[in-house]
């Protein structure tokens, strides 16, 4: 029983209080993260937020100033990279140019002392799983970018590691190929049940591929959650702004509220509107309201709401985006999906805006 449990957890990673400084820069600042075995976790954040440093610490090329890293419950913080038995796919320059595709894939097997025949057989099998059976004899330079990354993946899984680390592996590919590869990697991950830690600065990539996403900013973990959670219930203003499109509007709380409670917000230049307090607020506290463009509604006729002027209407087939200016000069975007029969508007029209309390998240602003 214990053996089974150990096997099941072999692909789990615990990052505990990881801190890495470069001079005065806190590249990673007290990050704690539990990654489950078999999970697809994305590390998402803007450039310089510490994603690569975290991944390199898991890989063993960076040693932390503080904290530890456990793999399947075992402390690997100080273990050299070649003894961690992890798979990794880099952004580019992944395949050794002086070896054929098959030799590249067989390389980790050679390092593990397998015989020639078994190496070849397993390398061919791995090449089949990434659907490149025919290209084994080629040199990496003779493959397209997408094929090279597929071979790199085959090479990283041929020795059946528990964990596969990927650092922006698709960022050098063009858009169509990137989307195709996203789906392919996701399928492969489900098929072989490997834990994947995937670094990206592309939120769409993170949301479509990952089971859970860890959002980073300035080396700090901002939020860890399923894609839907991040989009629907961002816990910080940064996450609300970084994931998806958001209108921010400053105001003050009309009353005190606990996290998760409804609260009225007095908007700058407008009246009081309903919102949901994300953090605890006292009456009169300054807050920032986050509103998704597609959750804003144009209210019919004489309904009570925020008066605004349509400055521009941009038709884009599947939706129409309205640029609005509310009282006090606040600029807003509003998106009306096509075909839902929602009221539309034209440039120059005066409209009244409204929203559900749950769709307006109020973040306390540090005074």
């Amino acid at each position, binding site marked *: 029983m214990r053996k089974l449990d150990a096997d099941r957890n072999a692909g789990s990673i615990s990052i505990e209080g990881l801190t890495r400084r470069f001079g005065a820069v806190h590249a990673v600042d007290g990050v704690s993260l539990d990654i489950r075995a078999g999970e697809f976790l994305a590390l998402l954040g803007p450039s310089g937020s510490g994603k690569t440093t975290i991944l390199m610490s898991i890989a063993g090329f960076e040693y932390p100033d503080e904290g530890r890293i456990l793999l399947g419950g075992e402390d690997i913080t100080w273990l050299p990279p070649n003894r961690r038995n992890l798979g990794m796919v880099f*952004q580019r320059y992944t395949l050794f140019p*002086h070896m054929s595709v098959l030799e590249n894939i067989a390389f980790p097997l050679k390092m593990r002392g397998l015989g020639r025949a078994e190496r070849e057989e397993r390398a061919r099998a791995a090449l089949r799983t990434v659907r490149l059976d025919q290209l084994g004899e080629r040199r990496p330079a003779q493959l397209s970018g997408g094929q090279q990354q597929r071979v790199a993946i085959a090479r990283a899984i041929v020795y059946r590691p528990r964990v596969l680390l990927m650092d922006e592996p698709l960022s050098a590919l063009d858009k169509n190929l990137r989307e195709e590869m996203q789906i392919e990697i996701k399928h492969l991950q489900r098929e072989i049940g490997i834990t994947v830690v995937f670094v990206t600065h592309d939120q769409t990539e993170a949301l479509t591929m990952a089971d859970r996403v860890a959002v980073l900013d300035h080396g700090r973990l901002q939020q860890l959650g399923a894609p839907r959670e991040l989009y629907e219930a961002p816990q910080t203003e940064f996450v609300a702004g970084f994931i998806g499109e958001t209108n921010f509007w400053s105001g003050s709380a009309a009353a005190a509220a606990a996290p998760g409670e409804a609260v009225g917000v007095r908007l700058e230049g407008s009246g009081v509107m309903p919102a949901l307090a994300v953090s605890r607020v006292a009456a009169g506290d300054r807050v920032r309201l986050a509103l998704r463009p597609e959750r804003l509604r144009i209210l019919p006729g004489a309904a009570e709401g925020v008066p605004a002027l349509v400055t521009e209407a941009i038709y884009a087939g599947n939706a129409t985006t309205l640029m609005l200016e509310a009282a006090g000069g606040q600029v807003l975007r509003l998106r009306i999906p096509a075909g839902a029969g929602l009221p539309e508007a034209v440039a120059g029209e005066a409209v009244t805006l409204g929203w559900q309390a749950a769709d307006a998240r109020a973040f306390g602003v540090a005074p």
Partner: protein
Amino acid sequence: MLGGRRFSPAASLALAAPFLLLLLVVFILPLATLLHESLFVPSPGLGNYAHALEEPVYLRVMLRTLRIAFLVTLLALVLAWPLAWVMSRSRGLGLALLGAAVLLPLWTSVLVRTYAWMVLLQRNGVINQMLARLGLIEQPVRLLYTEGAVVLAMAHVLLPFMVLPLYSALKGIPEDYPRAAQMLGASPWATFREVVWPLCLPGVTSGCLMVFLLALGFFVTPALIGGPQQMMIATLVSQQVRELLDWPFAGALVGILLAFVLALVLLFRRAVRLDRFVGQA
């Protein structure tokens, strides 16, 4: 190019003319005269060449020249590789200092550097004094006028010609290759053997060829640091010309050396790439 155009053949020739003229007057003409003499004086034929290749004394000098050049190349490679590796992974001030340390000797006279070795190696030189003070030796040991001393000093003098192409080749290996190898389970030694070494081979060939060819014709260092027992071919040529005034025979020795060098260059012509010496791997 100036003005963004490629030069026409005529313009190229005009620009290169001063150098080509100089090459013709001070290199090709004297060399041709010398080779001509070696073939026609005292009588037409290969007599001078046969003499050089049949006489055991001269043959020994030639074989010794090959052996010393080979050992110098090997030692220079072993000394230069780690240095070039560190340089290729350094940036900023560190790289500037290392680069200066490599190039500075190149800008000082070979004679000065050779005399420095003599000061170190002579009977009551720095090394002997230190060994004596440490109580390791009673009598000064003979360091100067040995083959080891010649090899060591020549390797030092020629080191920059090994470091530069190695640096250039290693610089062209992205950090991700050795990293990928380690992720895939390669120990540091296996990473070197399987990935870094094969990828830097063009630089190794380039540097070795350069050092070997320069070592073959080296004069100052072996002449000063080696004794008669360590005579190399350049010293022999000089002896024939200055002491025996036997120009035709010296010409034959030069002809043999030249033929050997040309054969090597042709054999490795793909490795002799000038761009490796100016940093475009």
